[in-house]
């Protein structure tokens, strides 16, 4: 499968297979960037995979006060789900439980689009009749009285039905420490790319899965990439690979996902095989399930 080697790192001639998803974004602001980040971290907790969490969510970027509606530091969060109704439900629950509750936090639409989801319109009822609507600049905001003042929340946020979920890189190394180093370098590079998130813990997932199971489960461990099973199964791993980590990437557009994968690959190659990964691959389902195919050979630095 290896087609080429760049600076000592083997790159599989394969592709990441990704799917079309629904996505939205919100901007969370607070008096300090640490509280804005805290609200975002809480909101995006337990949002690693749509399989068990309902949505995939993460922090896209931190925003300078000049970039936010109210002139305070902020964070942009992206959420991805398989259906509009599930995305609406997840957005409402997560903003309601994690942003409304955070001291000094406010929440605004973080995505423009013709299609919209309810944001403040779904949360205003917490005001129990004391909520106040303000409309200016073509947007409606809700002011909900809370114990530290008011929770300000824009009425709506945008929805895209052409987001892409499931871009990925499989990072393979000679041990856990070096593989983590390569994955961390890739995640750091990906975090600088706009409109994408890596929803797993720290942007990295160690439990890559395949579709199906011998039990009643929709997904199970991808034994072909488990180094401890190398001799027991039809393994995809070489003799020198003892650890594999995956980075899953969701983006608002296919070019954004491609840019993130390209940035991740570049970071891995830059780190080199002595300090990082020996090989990089990508996960797919044979190309029959997802409409988006990101070939690694087209994304090389």
């Amino acid at each position, binding site marked *: 499968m290896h087609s080429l080697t760049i600076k000592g790192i083997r790159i599989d001639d394969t592709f990441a297979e990704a799917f079309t998803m629904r996505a939205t974004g919100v901007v969370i602001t607070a008096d300090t960037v640490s509280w804005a980040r805290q609200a975002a971290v809480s909101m995006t907790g337990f949002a690693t995979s749509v399989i068990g969490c309902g949505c995939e969510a993460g922090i896209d970027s931190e925003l300078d006060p000049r970039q936010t509606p109210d002139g305070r530091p902020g964070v942009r969060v992206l959420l991805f789900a398989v259906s509009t109704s599930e995305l609406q439900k997840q957005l409402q629950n997560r903003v309601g439980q994690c942003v409304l509750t955070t001291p*000094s936090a*406010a929440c605004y639409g973080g995505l423009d689009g013709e299609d919209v989801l309810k944001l403040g319109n779904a949360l205003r009822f917490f005001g129990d009749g*004391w909520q106040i609507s303000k409309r*200016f600049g073509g947007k409606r*905001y809700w002011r909900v009285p809370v114990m530290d003042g008011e929770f*300000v929340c824009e009425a709506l946020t945008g929805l895209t039905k052409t987001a892409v979920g499931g871009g990925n890189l499989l990072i393979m190394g000679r041990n856990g420490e070096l593989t983590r180093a390569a994955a961390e370098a890739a995640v750091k590079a990906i975090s600088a790319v706009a409109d994408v998130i890596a929803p797993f813990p720290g942007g990295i997932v160690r439990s890559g899965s395949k579709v199906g199971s011998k039990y009643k489960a929709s997904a199970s461990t991808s034994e072909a990439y488990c180094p401890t099973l190398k001799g027991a199964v039809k393994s995809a791993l070489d003799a020198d690979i003892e650890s594999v980590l995956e980075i899953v990437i969701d983006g608002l557009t296919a070019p954004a996902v491609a840019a993130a994968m390209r940035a991740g690959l570049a970071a891995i190659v830059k780190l080199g095989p002595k300090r990082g990964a020996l090989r990089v691959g990508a996960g797919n389902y044979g190309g029959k399930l997802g409409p988006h195919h990101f070939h690694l050979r087209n994304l090389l630095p």
Partner: protein
Amino acid sequence: MKPLVLVMHTSPQQRLDLSPLVPLRLAGKTVAEIGKLELQTGRERVTVGDIFRLSGNDTTRVRIEGATDRLDQIGQEMSGGEIVVEGDVGNQAGRLMRGGRLIIKGNAGHWAASGMRDGYVEITGASGDRLGGPLAGETAGMRGGMVVVRGDAGDRTGDRLRRGIIIVEGRAGAYAGSRMIAGTLVLHRRAGQLPGYLMRRGTIVLGDGCDELLPTFVDCGVHDLVAMRLLAAFVKAQSAAAAAAFRVPLRRFAGDMSVLGKGEIFCATG
């Protein structure tokens, strides 16, 4: 294309209704055709050409020069384009506007922007009473858009305001924001007595206090609210002076408790 320019050469004998001279109603007409349009006044028949000398051909941009306070209903039911008036105007300028920009480089009479639904009105001088307010028998006043008065405003500014923003950079008369239903009224300089009289909902911001506050407004303390920052940022684009009223923590009064009581008056504390 050059803007359609109407220069007044004859002062009207009586009040003159200029509501036909809005871009939508002028669209497709030549200067000659516009000159023959009849304007409502007293018993005599008056055409546009009898009062104005016309030039230009872009009816989306109308300029009226040499205006006087006998010219009523300028920009009435305007839905787009721009009207710039050099001089004072009479009553009901911008009434029932649905879009576009109306710039009055002078003073405006009573009921300017009355019942306005959308668009932008700017009055560089003073405005008369009941800015944005309803006429007799109407249940709501201004329902959207933005009005900026660079000078003073008369009594009952924002009467029955339902939606939209009114900014007054000068002083406002008595009963500003009376019977407000919702919306926002920003008064940069001192307001007259009893602002917010019978207001149900909505927001009044007083940059320099008022002559007398109703006893039916209750003190809710001093706050630095995010919503005020948002509003200040939006107001600043139209009026840096008025935006300055938001820069200090504001004392919030809730009222008018003699009616629904879900309105609010913010007063600068600094």
